[in-house]
């Protein structure tokens, strides 16, 4: 069994063990409920093996929410620890555990909460918005989902079997090298990132081809909704950036497994190379998670202002400019490494340049509301919360782009406050806006507004309370990632921040209640077009039939559906046979094998890793041999579904 023994299970650690027991109990309860309701075959046939982009999208979002909650509990533990651990008190976490928690928090939030959330929303909305019946490669889509899910599972398993990485989410070498991190933590982190990274790369290819090749007739590039543009650029970033991460982690693994010296400080290795490679992926990754949210804000602000988006071309060019510039700024993550003044200044200025297109976008959203009719539904709450909060994060970001300012603020809590100020309003609020905006479309039920707005107020107040003190702490000289500290002046601010986290906890709780009420017995069915929408996803029923559109729409305007509504919608006179992809379990099997392969590699169980890798290869070959991957939905059936009002 390689390095794996029973001592890998941390029985002596009550915090971890109670988390593990909780997770197991929840899993047993869910399994029990499914068995009681005899839903296993439904779950397997209708969901887990589905190649329908809408269902895959929903599964991505479910995964993202589960991981968001996990990552948030890490955040609560960190804030509590720091609120307590002043002076001689070392807090309540056992030694080394805090280091695992912040490493897991960053990894989970970026790779397993933000990424699945945005890919899920893309899955739900993109084919509908471009008037397509599915994505370009439906099976590949399922593979991406299951790779992401199995990588997330690997991170979850590290909680109960062995350790997670203690080298930070960015895993800086040489700390992440074998000499300084001999346990399996870094390997869990590496293989989880590798598997998820391949999933993301495949998604990137899939959506890029989908957007370029599958748009409805008449939808020229400059008629695409802004969210489609944002997704287009995001997927270009995924395609260009993820291979760099894959290569960097592969070299790190060669160091760790085969004793090579790519990133060691001795024997000719160079840790600076790792840091550069990590951020060549890491900085575009920031825009991978933020650009789709910007796209969502653009959709939401136009719909809920009942007005055309202001400055469409500007928004497109601004997004393109951000995409290009995002590859030219990675060095600002380490101005303090000692590059010369010319290099630092050049990368600093490149970073500032990004503020221009970003600023333009904010003005475009503001002027979309101008002379509009603003409706305050919950997607708009998240958007306005973003608009009023993001500017602060932008400002502190430009501040950090000045190398001499970074020399004093680098790696401080000011930096932590800054990037949370970008990612919480900029990315997460965007996903929440998209979640509440498309929830009726994806599920067929309206999302409860009352609990949604309560959740919003908890989130926004909690955000300010949790992160504004961290800005102050940066000026008080507090570094990030401190398990305990000796300076009593820091403690009051950390206690304030802990209360902020508590408020956010209520925000998440209210969102849980919101989802439960919206899907529970008192649920309210959604109209096809509940928000008076402007784009094509609202032209079909809620939820849409498996084929999305009985007749592919003809696009004559940027706001394609609005134009159709004005011209008058007529039911089609005749229906055609529609080809839709058959379900396939092979995606789920590839995911499961990847998990086994990753687990085998982490624990040096070579036979398991080799067998799993072979199995993946065999599944891929057998899938390539399959000829009947599509099924025909006859026109009569289409007619029946359409006339029954699209109920699945």
């Amino acid at each position: 069994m390689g390095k794996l023994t029973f001592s890998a299970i941390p029985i002596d650690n009550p915090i971890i063990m109670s988390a593990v027991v909780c997770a197991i109990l929840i899993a047993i309860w869910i399994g029990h409920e499914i068995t009681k309701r005899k839903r296993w075959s439904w779950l397997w046939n209708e969901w887990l093996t589905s190649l329908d982009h809408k269902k895959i999208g929903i599964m991505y979002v479910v995964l993202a929410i589960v991981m968001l909650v996990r990552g948030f509990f890490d955040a609560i533990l960190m804030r509590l620890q720091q609120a307590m651990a002043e002076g001689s008190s070392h807090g309540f976490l056992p030694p080394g555990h805090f280091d695992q928690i912040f490493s897991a928090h960053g990894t989970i939030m970026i790779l397993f909460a933000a990424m699945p959330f945005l890919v899920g929303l893309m899955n739900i909305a993109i084919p509908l918005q471009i008037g397509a019946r599915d994505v370009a490669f439906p099976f590949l889509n399922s593979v991406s989902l299951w790779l992401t899910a199995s990588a997330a599972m690997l991170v979850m398993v590290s909680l109960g079997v062995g350790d997670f990485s203690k080298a930070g989410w960015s895993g800086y070498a040489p700390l992440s090298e074998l000499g300084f991190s001999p346990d399996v933590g870094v390997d869990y982190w590496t293989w989880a990132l590798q598997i998820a990274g391949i999933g993301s790369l495949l998604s990137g290819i899939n959506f890029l081809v989908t957007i370029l090749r599958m748009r409805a007739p008449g939808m020229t590039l400059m008629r695409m909704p802004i969210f489609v543009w944002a997704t287009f650029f995001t997927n270009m970033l995924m395609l260009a950036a993820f291979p760099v991460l894959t290569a960097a982690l592969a070299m790190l693994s060669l160091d760790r497994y085969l004793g090579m010296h790519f990133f060691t400080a001795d024997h000719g290795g160079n840790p600076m190379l790792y840091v550069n490679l990590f951020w060549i992926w890491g900085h575009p990754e920031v825009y991978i998670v933020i650009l789709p949210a910007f796209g969502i804000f653009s959709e939401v602000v136009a719909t809920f202002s009942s007005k055309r988006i202001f400055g469409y071309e500007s928004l497109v060019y601004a997004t393109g400019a951000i995409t290009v510039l995002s590859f030219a700024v990675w060095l600002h993550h380490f101005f303090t490494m000692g590059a010369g003044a010319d290099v630092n200044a050049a990368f600093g200025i490149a970073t500032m340049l990004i503020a221009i297109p970003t600023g333009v976008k904010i003005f475009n959203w503001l002027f979309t509301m101008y002379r509009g009719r603003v409706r305050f539904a919950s997607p708009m709450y998240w958007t306005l919360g973003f608009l009023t909060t993001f500017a602060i994060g932008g400002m502190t970001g430009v501040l950090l782009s000045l190398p001499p300012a970074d020399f004093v603020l680098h790696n401080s809590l000011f930096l932590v406050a800054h990037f949370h100020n970008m990612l919480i309003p900029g990315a997460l609020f965007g996903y929440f806006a998209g979640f509440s905006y498309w929830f009726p479309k994806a599920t067929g039920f309206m999302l409860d507004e009352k609990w949604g707005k309560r959740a919003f107020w908890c989130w926004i107040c909690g955000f300010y309370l949790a992160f504004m003190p961290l800005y102050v702490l940066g000026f008080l000289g507090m570094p990030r990632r401190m398990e305990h500290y000796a300076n009593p002046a820091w403690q009051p601010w950390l206690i304030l921040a802990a209360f902020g986290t508590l408020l956010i906890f209520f925000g998440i709780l209210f969102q849980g209640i919101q989802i439960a009420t919206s899907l529970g017995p008192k649920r309210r069915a959604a109209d096809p077009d509940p928000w008076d929408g402007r784009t094509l996803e609202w032209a079909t029923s809620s939820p849409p039939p498996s084929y999305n559109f009985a007749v592919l729409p003809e696009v004559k305007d940027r706001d394609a559906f609005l134009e159709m509504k004005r011209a008058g919608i007529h039911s089609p006179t005749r229906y055609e046979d529609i080809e839709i992809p058959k379900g396939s379990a092979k995606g789920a099997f590839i995911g499961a094998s990847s998990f086994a392969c990753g687990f085998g590699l982490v624990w040096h169980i070579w036979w398991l890793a080799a067998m799993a890798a072979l199995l993946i290869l065999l599944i891929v070959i057998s899938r390539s041999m399959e000829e009947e991957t599509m099924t025909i939905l006859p026109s009569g059936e289409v007619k029946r579904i359409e006339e029954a009002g699209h109920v699945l």
Partner: protein
Amino acid sequence: MNRLLKTFPIAVLLSGCESAPLLDPAGPIGKSELHLILISFALMLIVVIPVTFMAFWFPRKFSASDPKGKYEPEWSRSSSIEFVVWLVPAIIVAALATISWRATHRLDPFRPIPGNPVRIEAVSLDWKWLFIYPDLGIATIDRLVIPVNVPVSFRLTSASVMTSFFIPSLGSQVYAMGGMQTRLHLLAQREGEFTGQNQQYSGRGYADMHFRVEAVSADRYAKWAEQVSRSGVKLDDARYAEIEKPGISYPVREFSGVEPGLFGKIVKGK
């Protein structure tokens, strides 16, 4: 935004009692950096204040339930507005870029401060700092004594992982990396005790990897050096091997002698 403005004055108040080292720098480097932060902060407010104002005002003015402005659902472009929204941020960034270019060159940590400096070689170890004074032939662990109004010229390296050497009261941090040497130049203008710290997470003992910095008069500095050099404990190979071992909350130590060229050997991977 409002909260931010509320919290900052509080931070400024705190600066009086030396708990906000970045707002109350004890040397010219830190002062210039604070100055730069304040100037660019003010410049950015030119955009951020109107944005925040509009973000509150527009939705209220054009609220569907109680609109106070006209409704033009097709109005989606205005060359003059677009011109302004590209131009104003561009001008501000151009101004900031100019400021940044100059400041980055002036405040480059590798750039010497004019004057005859005190030379110090700092070695980052798990999890403590070794300071070698090559001109005095003495060394300390986790205690840095420097004379006021004399430039201090640091050479930094690491005998372990990557760390960041930072004295918040004096300004500018720089990484210490194994097999390499980085430079940092600082100057203390007032006497006092400050905290120095590792600002880059480096494993288990990271939270305890801070040290005391004492900026003292030239007299006291000379006396201290004299005292240390008479204490009789030399940093020889055996002692270095001992302090190189990972250890948390290592005690402050002083060494009366140090093997010449030790720093260079550590850089080469002793």
